[in-house]
Structures are given as C-alpha cells and as structure tokens.
C-alpha cells in the first residue's frame, strides 16, 4: 500500500534543518512543495499547542484533504513534523522517539552547530530505514 509521508525537522528559530520524503508512493514534482507548504502552515498551531501540554508527542494537529500532520516537540523546542496519510499512531510515536535519539547523537557532535542543517549522510540513511520500519 503506497503511503505519502514527508518528514521535516524544524529548529526553534523556525528554520528547517532536515527534510526527507519517506513515503513509499512515487514522488511527484509539485507534491514536495505542497507538503512543505502544509507543514509550514502548521507551525503556528504547533507553537500554541506546545505550551499547553507537557507531553512531547502531540498527535494529529492539523489536516489537509486526507493528509494529517503529526508533530513531536523536543525539550529544546526542535519540532519533528510528519505529514502522512496513514492512521498508525503507535508506529508514528515510535518513529519519532527513535529519530529523537538519533538527533541527540547529532547534537553531541562538538563540530555540529545547533540550528544548522544536518548534512550527515549516516543520519539520512538511518532516518529512511526507520521510516520504512515504522511507517
């Protein structure tokens, strides 16, 4: 079953530091830009919602046609946002938790400036593998 999914990590200054299309459907040219637009529009909602709850995983916070936006906020207000069309809440939660662990390892690299783009190809490979496993 083909799923569309777009995963973006946005820093606390609202700058995207990592993006990946992790769905198994074929990618269309305009789809990528549409996905990023939807995720950007959801940022306002995330900002308000993040202060209302102490949980890190905010479930589905926004919808667009049949696509749902789910967000996971880290302690440093880095947002892991996923745009998807499936309904697999537990899988998405586990996916976010594992990516959070990978992100912490990147932060521990002294040569990485927090808030800058994540360029490590190892991180990219691992995120895609996790996406295939959980989504």
């Amino acid at each position, binding site marked *: 079953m083909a799923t569309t999914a777009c995963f973006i990590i946005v820093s606390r200054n609202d700058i995207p530091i990592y993006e990946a299309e992790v769905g198994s459907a074929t990618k269309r040219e305009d789809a990528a830009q549409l996905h990023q637009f939807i995720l950007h529009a959801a940022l306002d909602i995330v900002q308000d919602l993040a202060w209302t709850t102490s949980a890190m995983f905010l479930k589905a916070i926004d919808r667009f046609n049949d696509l749902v936006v789910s967000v996971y906020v880290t302690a440093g207000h880095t947002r892991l946002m996923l745009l998807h069309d499936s309904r697999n809440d537990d899988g998405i939660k586990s996916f976010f938790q594992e990516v959070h662990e990978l992100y912490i390892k990147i932060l521990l*690299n*002294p*040569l990485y400036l927090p808030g800058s783009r994540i360029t490590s190809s190892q991180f990219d490979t691992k995120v895609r593998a996790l996406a295939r496993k959980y989504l």
Partner: protein
Amino acid sequence: MAPVAPRSGDAIFASVERVNAELFTLTYGAIVRQLLTDLEEVEEVNKQLDQMGYNIGIRLIDEFLAKSNVARCVDFKETAEVIAKVGFKMFLGVTASVSNWDADGTCCSIVLEDNPLVDFVELPDTCQGLYYCNVLSGVIRGALEMVSMKTEVTWVRDMLRGDDAFELQVKLLKQVPEEYPYKDDE
C-alpha cells in the same frame, strides 16, 4: 629499600581518580570547536592541538613514572610497549597495541581500536584536513622528549576519515644523552 614492582595498567587505572567519560569527550570537543572558531585554518588548529599535547606530555611523564613504577626501558621497543599497554590504559582507559616494527627498531605503529575522545564526532565538510586527536601525538612526543628521546609522531589511520582504527606512527629520531648542567671545572 626494595625496588617496587611495576604495576599493570589495569591496576593503576582502577586506583586513580576518574572523570565521567562523556564530560571528558564533550570538554575536548568544546576545545576543538573553540580552536576552529578562533583560528579558522585547519592546519593552524592541527598545530595548536599538537602544541597543547606537547605541553601536557612534558608534565604527564612525571605522573606516569610516579604511578607506574616501570623500570628503565632497555630499548625503544620496550618503551613503545609501555606507552601502549600502561600509558594509554592509565590515562584513557583503552589498551593500544604496537605493530609494524621496522628493521632497526626505531619506528613503530601504535594502534587504538577505540578512542574516548571521538565519541559522537563526525567531521563536517568544512574541516576535512583536521586531525581531531592531534593532542595525543603531542602528548607522546612531549613525554618522550622529557626522557631524552627525540621522536616524530604522525597519524597513519584516522577513524574520522573512514579508516577502521586509529594508528599513530612513532619514529625515534635520536637519543639525546643526559647533559650535566654544570661544567666540571668551574
């Protein structure tokens, strides 16, 4: 007084005060990052790390000899073995191995399988020429100079550049005989 037997690296490591490994790794990482910000040139940073290692080494040798009670080394081969097995174990908690001896016994390789300085580190594209652990080469050079051996230490393999282990090549340039500081006829 009866001579005290030399202690093994494990025994000394268990008895000295230790610091949290992550704190050590993060502190060293902060030093390297600050050097990169201040000096901007990767070559300059390499030189500074080596100089810092040298300053550490000339002081470290005294603590090493005091804690480990090793007897005078007969030749350079024994020196290298002592550095790898006792020295690295005592200060970093890892055991290194010695290999690749050349024909006259003046040049060898010390191989480190794991290295606490580089946990979590990945070299970004802007720092490709950086020898992240260059402080270690300075430490060995400084320590050996205080025991009258002039050496040259270079990196052969570096895990941050894709190799499978860290390998340091230690080359003995010359043995400097101990000089008596006062002239006899004065």
